[in-house]
């Protein structure tokens, strides 16, 4: 059809996707053609039988054998075709998902945040599904439909071209109707997709925020939100339905009109002996054969359109520039860290402004500052999770880009502020990096004061834990995250507000353990508590993305009013020195 061919030119991509599977696709088409060719032949056998009978020379045996043979061949080819069809479409889907995940896994953190995990989830599931649908249905359907249409038309023309032309006239009529209706449907589909995204968002948030919803008892509110989205989705469904409700009867009616023509005109031909009765019957059969493929092509052009849209979305992920592995240095780190003139901008907003400081190997640094000062971003910068817009981060005097990422990450441990626990055993959660040995695992567990807790569990280290599961308390999660960072035997340890969820007693023990078990470690700790960092080599006071003061505790007490203010805010408990 017109719109379809145009589409081929516009998006060679989706057909290009099939290139590696050429063999399968060809096999698929061949089998489909075989079974269809034989299918076309069936009415001929019947017509032949009827004509032979009227002529009085009908012979049962050859007719039945021919027919049986044809039917069996159709069965075999059709089943083979369906198996290859399933295999090919699932293979394409699997490979596409592998390519996607491979690509995503090589991307930066910023990219994944920007691309939005839930959108990527849709890419990996719904979008791949619509391409799968394209492979499994559209290719075969269109090829065999075209074949049937052309074949049936030729046969009709051979039998009686005048009558045939009348029948074939339905093809453009149906085609144009489809074109007009589907054009409208596509617009609706696109809009309804946005509504579905909205619907999914409400569902997702109601699942992720389930505890809050129950505390506030806002289930009704969520239900109303959902109802709005769902009603909208239903309205779209009904509008699309209305279009189809108009389309299908028109097509059936057109086909019926063709049947009527066969009767009126064909009857006329039979009466004046220019058409045999058998051929007349065959005409009726071919008409039935002809209608279905026309419908199929119409519906499939829609599948192609949806698959094309999905493939565009997927391509934008696959074709996005990859993070090149520029680093080659795999030297062991000493632990010197230096930041020079760093600026980080998020959207329009500067998050970090002109940050420069340096840290000597083995020293302890604290970063303190109010909420939203940019502390976490600073640590993200140090692990290479985000890149500065200007300035440079150096480890041991070399820019961080020079390091091979594997070697770099196995020497820098990071404890995130929010608890991130994977749904697997405690052992796998702690020994998350593959460089972890049993020895370093044990050391990390002991250092994070997790030994007793783990021993109290029935399955010990093999206990499966989960992020939202109730099996772990906030502090336990935090300590598992610390053990995860320590298990790589890092030279530099970054702690993001580690102390927030761990009680003082445990915190002190853990810090002592770190001192003892990881000598020479460079520690950079974002914290709120001055008391635990008073002895640190350097304290950096960060406010609104800028370094306000930097120095040892005693110095800052004299030079920085902001620091003193924070210190005072924590002073009331000073008589219970911890």
């Amino acid at each position, binding site marked *: 059809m017109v719109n379809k061919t145009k589409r081929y030119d516009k998006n060679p991509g989706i057909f290009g996707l099939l290139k590696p599977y050429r063999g399968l696709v060809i096999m698929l088409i061949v089998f489909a053609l075989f079974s269809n060719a034989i299918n076309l032949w069936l009415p001929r056998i019947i017509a032949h039988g009827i004509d032979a009978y009227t002529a009085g020379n009908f012979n049962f045996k050859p007719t039945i054998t021919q027919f049986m043979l044809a039917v069996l061949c159709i069965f075999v080819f059709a089943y083979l075709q369906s198996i290859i069809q399933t295999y090919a479409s699932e293979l394409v889907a699997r490979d596409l998902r592998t390519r996607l995940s491979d690509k995503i896994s090589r991307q930066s953190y910023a990219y994944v945040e920007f691309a939005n995990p839930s959108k990527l989830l849709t890419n990996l599931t719904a979008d791949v599904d619509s391409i799968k649908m394209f492979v499994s249905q559209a290719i075969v359907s269109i090829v065999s439909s075209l074949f049937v249409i052309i074949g049936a038309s030729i046969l009709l023309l051979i039998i009686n071209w005048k009558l045939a032309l009348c029948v074939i006239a339905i093809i453009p009529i149906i085609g144009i109707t489809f074109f007009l209706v589907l054009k409208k449907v596509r617009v609706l589909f696109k809009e309804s997709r946005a509504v579905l995204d909205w619907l999914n968002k409400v569902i997702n948030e109601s699942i992720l925020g389930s505890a809050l919803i129950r505390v506030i*008892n806002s289930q009704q509110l969520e239900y109303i939100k959902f109802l709005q989205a769902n009603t909208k989705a239903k309205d779209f469904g009904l509008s699309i339905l209305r279009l189809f409700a108009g389309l299908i009867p028109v097509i059936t009616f057109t086909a019926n009109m063709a049947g009527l023509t066969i009767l009126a005109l064909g009857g006329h031909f039979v009466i004046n002996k220019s058409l045999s009765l058998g051929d007349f019957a065959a005409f009726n059969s071919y008409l039935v054969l002809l209608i279905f493929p026309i419908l199929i092509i119409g519906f499939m052009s829609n599948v192609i359109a949806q698959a094309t849209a999905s493939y565009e979305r997927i391509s934008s992920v696959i074709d996005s520039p990859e993070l090149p592995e520029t680093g080659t240095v795999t030297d062991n780190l000493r632990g010197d860290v230096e930041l020079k003139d760093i600026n980080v901008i998020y959207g329009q907003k500067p998050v970090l402004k002109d940050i420069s400081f340096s840290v000597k190997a083995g020293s302890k640094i604290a970063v303190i500052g109010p909420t939203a000062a940019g502390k976490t971003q600073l640590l993200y910068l140090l692990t290479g999770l985000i890149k500065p817009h200007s300035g440079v981060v150096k480890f041991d005097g070399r820019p961080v880009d020079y390091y091979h990422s594997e070697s770099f990450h196995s020497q820098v441990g990071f404890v995130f502020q929010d608890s991130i626990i994977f749904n697997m055993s405690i052992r796998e959660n702690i020994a998350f990096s593959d460089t972890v040995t049993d020895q370093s695992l044990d050391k990390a567990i002991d250092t994070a004061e997790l030994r007793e807790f783990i021993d109290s569990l029935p399955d010990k280290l093999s206990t499966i834990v989960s992020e939202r599961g109730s099996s772990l308390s906030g502090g336990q999660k935090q300590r598992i995250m610390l053990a995860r960072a320590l298990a790589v035997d890092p030279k530099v340890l970054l702690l993001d507000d580690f102390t927030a969820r761990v009680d003082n007693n445990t915190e002190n023990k853990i810090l002592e353990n770190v001192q003892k078990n990881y000598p020479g470690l460079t520690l950079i700790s974002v914290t709120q508590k001055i008391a635990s960092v008073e002895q640190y080599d350097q304290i950096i006071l960060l406010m609104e993305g800028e370094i306000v003061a930097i120095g040892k505790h005693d110095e800052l007490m004299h030079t920085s009013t902001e620091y003193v203010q924070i210190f005072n805010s924590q002073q009331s408990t000073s008589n219970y020195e911890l």
Partner: protein
Amino acid sequence: MNYDLNKFSELQQRTSILAALKRLLALIAHERKNLWLALIAILINSTVNLLGPLLIGRAIDKYVIPGNYHGVLVYSGILLAMYLCGLVASYLQTKLMGGVGQRMLYTLRNAIFNKLQQLPVAFFNQNKAGDLISRVNNDTDKINTFFSQSLMQFVGSIAIMTGAGILLLCINLKLGAATLAPAALAWLFTKIVSPWVKRKNATNLKSVGGMSAEIQESLNNFKVIIAFNRRDYFRKRFDSANKDNYVTAIKAGIANNIFLPVYGLLSGVAQLVVLAYGIYLISISTPDTKDAFTIGSLIIYLSYANNFYNPLRQLASLWASFQTAMAGWDRISQILSLETNLVTVKEQVIESSDSLLEFRNVHFAYPGGNEILHNINFKLERGKTYALVGPTGGGKTTTASLIARLYDPTKGTVFLDGKDIRSYQPDERSQKVGFILQEPFLFTGTVKENILYGNEIYRDFSNEELEDALKKASLWSLLAIFEHGLETKVSSSGDSISLGQKQLIAFMRAVLRNPEILILDEATANIDTITEQLLSDILKKLPESTTRVIIAHRLNTIENADEIYFVNSGEVIRAGSLEDAIARLLHGKRVS
């Protein structure tokens, strides 16, 4: 109660599915009028479709063969009129049946969502978010595909088939029976094969759920994957989920595709039967017999056989989609069959009590876990500030969760205002109890929307009115760190704003609700100490009768408490004084 959907026992599944199937039908019970109208339209439409060949056959026998062209034209006129009727009926059929399908889907989605809202927190903790999302999205979509695309064809095909079948039998009983015999075989085949097909689809849907859970987990925790250089972790985990999905999908696909070739084969056999048996019948019938079987009859018969077997072939592919939908429905009805274990009990005699909240002999264990709280007894009075301190894993959050009735005690009773907390209606309880959770959650939207979330009183406030209200509650100054104040955009996922900022929003949200008892579960842990002082000033300014329960590690946040409870190893012990609490904290043995 077991809420883990993947640990559903066979028995639990089987008994509930029968009931669930009934519920699926109950969803369209109120559509009776539309269903009747649709049925009439379907009947008219199928009659037209069936009468067509009959009339054509008649015309051939009566007029074409004898050569009476006028009669042919008369029949053509009748057919035209009939086809016009069919046009209208077919439109109505699609519209009405499709409408029923769409509304059924709508009702179904509402039912699932409503059920999700009724289920307790325990349900969400026992199931992976990705799997739940897949159930609600992907599995309803399978049902959607069936209802929006296949149901009409399904009903239409069955109607045409039934009509064609009856006609086949009426025209010639013996030939009809012979023609329909292959269909009986098809029916038998379907009956035997369907459970297998459904099982394959169910396995596939399960692996889709697993894959979605895997993606969800990996992508949402991507920063850990990068920081620990485990990009291969994501790839490996995903690859195995992907491979699993691939294998199950192929199996399901092969199962789904078995119907069409078999039905095709049988319909071929049927055609052959008609041809052979028909010619035999013609050969034995003599022109003067009453029910003479003619060439015309044979042609009609062939087209009726087509009318019967073409829809049957369509049913073959529809049937696979039906089996997939049923497998999806099973997974959804697993959710629908769950009931909340937090039912509201009958109101009891109110005990006159000066305490706002009391734990009496409370024991608690998470489902399938060890007992977390052992025989807890304490009372909280109105207007006082309490601190719960203790080492991590001691049971503080669990205690707080029982106060907010996120869970019920396994033994013993929690009294709120002298009444069993279980006897409160949820809205009344949640008005009395405010709980700032350890992990703050934001809905995608603006800061304003999040602060006012679920707030009946301030819901319709304009920005100015809200500003006044916030100033009155001394909350206004907290908004300074949000770039665009109340209108700052936030999202439920990602690092668009810091954890501390999220905690601030959660704090404002809870305070504005003005609860009688406000629990802060390490709710300010990631907020700097200066802002935290502001927060504690705000807490002090809460109405005199408000009881505050603070769970925290920072001593300055708890030193203002009137009473301190030390929570450790499942026991809640009242500390004599701050010094006592600190002594316990410092020297008490940590058991976790």
